[in-house]
């Protein structure tokens, strides 16, 4: 029963989505399923938050390695949640309803956290990639065999072709041979070799998704329901 009902819901919903794609009459059912999906996706945020809270709380109470980071995570999580829910710093639209303002209003605590904490922190994390890529390029990118040589040559062409250096270095090449310039070669690599590889991967993935979906709809694969 514990696995049959969830499977039945998944199977009926999945079949509805497939049928609605081909039968216009079933369009309303698909829209209904879509609305339910939106509700469930929103509830998943709450479950995710609760899971994050309990996991980190357990780590702190057990004093496991790195529990200090968990404490920072919890403080940030709870702090953001509280200022967002209580609309700290939001000026009410209607003075008779103190919580009537927009939760992310400019100047509010949540707005401040987003622009002055979350925004710079995530941008800084992403920017650090440049430093690690440079270090990895120096230590790991070695011409050890034919495949590595091919990879390295491709990387050089694309790295140069995506900047002004590539255009400048091959600027004496006449227009009729523009395919031989660094930008031209980059376009060929991305438009031909990359496209061919990507299409092969995409078709493979699509076939895998179709097969897995069929197994889920027919109840052959129930691993997504958990082991209990």
């Amino acid at each position, binding site marked *: 029963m514990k696995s049959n009902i969830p499977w039945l819901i998944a199977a009926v919903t999945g079949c509805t989505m497939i049928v609605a794609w081909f039968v216009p009459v079933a369009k309303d059912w698909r829209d209904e399923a*879509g609305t339910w999906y*939106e509700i469930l996706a929103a509830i998943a945020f709450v479950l995710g938050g609760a899971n994050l809270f309990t996991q980190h709380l357990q780590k702190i109470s057990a004093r496991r390695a790195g529990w200090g980071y968990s404490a920072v995570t919890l403080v940030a999580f709870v702090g953001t949640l509280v200022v967002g829910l209580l609309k700290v710093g939001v000026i009410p639209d209607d003075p008779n309803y103190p919580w009537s303002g927009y939760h992310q209003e400019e100047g509010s605590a949540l707005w401040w956290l987003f622009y002055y904490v979350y925004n710079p922190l995530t941008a800084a994390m992403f920017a650090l990639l440049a430093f690690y890529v440079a270090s990895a390029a120096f230590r790991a990118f070695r*011409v050890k065999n034919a495949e590595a040589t091919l990879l390295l040559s491709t*990387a050089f062409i694309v790295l140069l072709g995506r*900047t002004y250096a590539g255009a400048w270095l091959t600027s004496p090449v006449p227009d009729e041979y523009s395919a031989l310039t660094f*930008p031209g070669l980059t376009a060929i690599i991305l438009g031909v070799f990359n496209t061919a590889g990507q299409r092969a991967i995409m078709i493979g993935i699509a076939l895998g998704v179709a097969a897995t979906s069929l197994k889920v709809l027919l109840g052959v694969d129930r691993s997504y329901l958990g082991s209990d």
Partner: protein
Amino acid sequence: MLDFLKNLDRRWIFLAMLLAVAIPVVMQKTFPEKPTKLVQDAFDAIENLPDESNVLFSFDYEPSTEGELAPMAKALIRHCCLKRHKMFFMTLWPGGLPLIEQNIEDIISKEYEEEHFARGKDYLNLGYNAGREVAIIVMGTNFKRMFPTDNDKIPLDDPTLPMAHDIDRLDDMDLIVDISAGYPGMKEWVQYAASPYGIKLVIASTAVQAPQAYPYYPNQLTGVLAAIKGAAEYEAALGEKYPKYRDPAFNDAIRRMAPQLWAHLLIIGLILLGNGIYFAERIKGTRR
């Protein structure tokens, strides 16, 4: 010397990368950009639409990729403002909503203050939808089911939002612009909007995601802005058509191409140096 280079502390590499990026930022040197066909097609898709066409923007990214995607968003919105297209903004990413608000404030409200763009008449913030690709599927046939109100909770049928009255399905949009950093984003818009309904779709994507866009061009994707280079090319195309936009104040991406140039050259130099050390060691080992 070889031993020093072999055991080079990575902090020297970090310092070199910092200088390679920081010096060009301070120097403000820019280089000419020529739009590639992918970018020119994206530009033409907006340029060739009749004035006041419906354009749906989906901000499917968060602040982590803002450095790369914000210049694209700005250039695309500026172009739509110049053509007085009706702009609908939405996001499938929770962190995308403040970015929509910021762009509306900075560009539509401030830069185009004299044009008097009005909310609900010229642009509309629909807000965030948690439905991911299912939201796109339902919007395809029943737009208002996924977005019954705008972000201020005003029903789309309200008289103050006339631009939304005739929007019942996704194909009531003349063009979709997806600014995408991952899932849900580019692929989902291709699969559930561009392919089934034949709606024109322009993608502005991060460098890591861009290779996945090429297989869809030019059939499902009308144009592609790939990474900061794509943004710089779009700014160049905008400046070519509208000379006012050659002003460096409007060229965020073009200004970022100089740091990118030196960072790329540094990476190439480091790869060559690393391989030089590798071969020198092999030769040394053979001689022994």
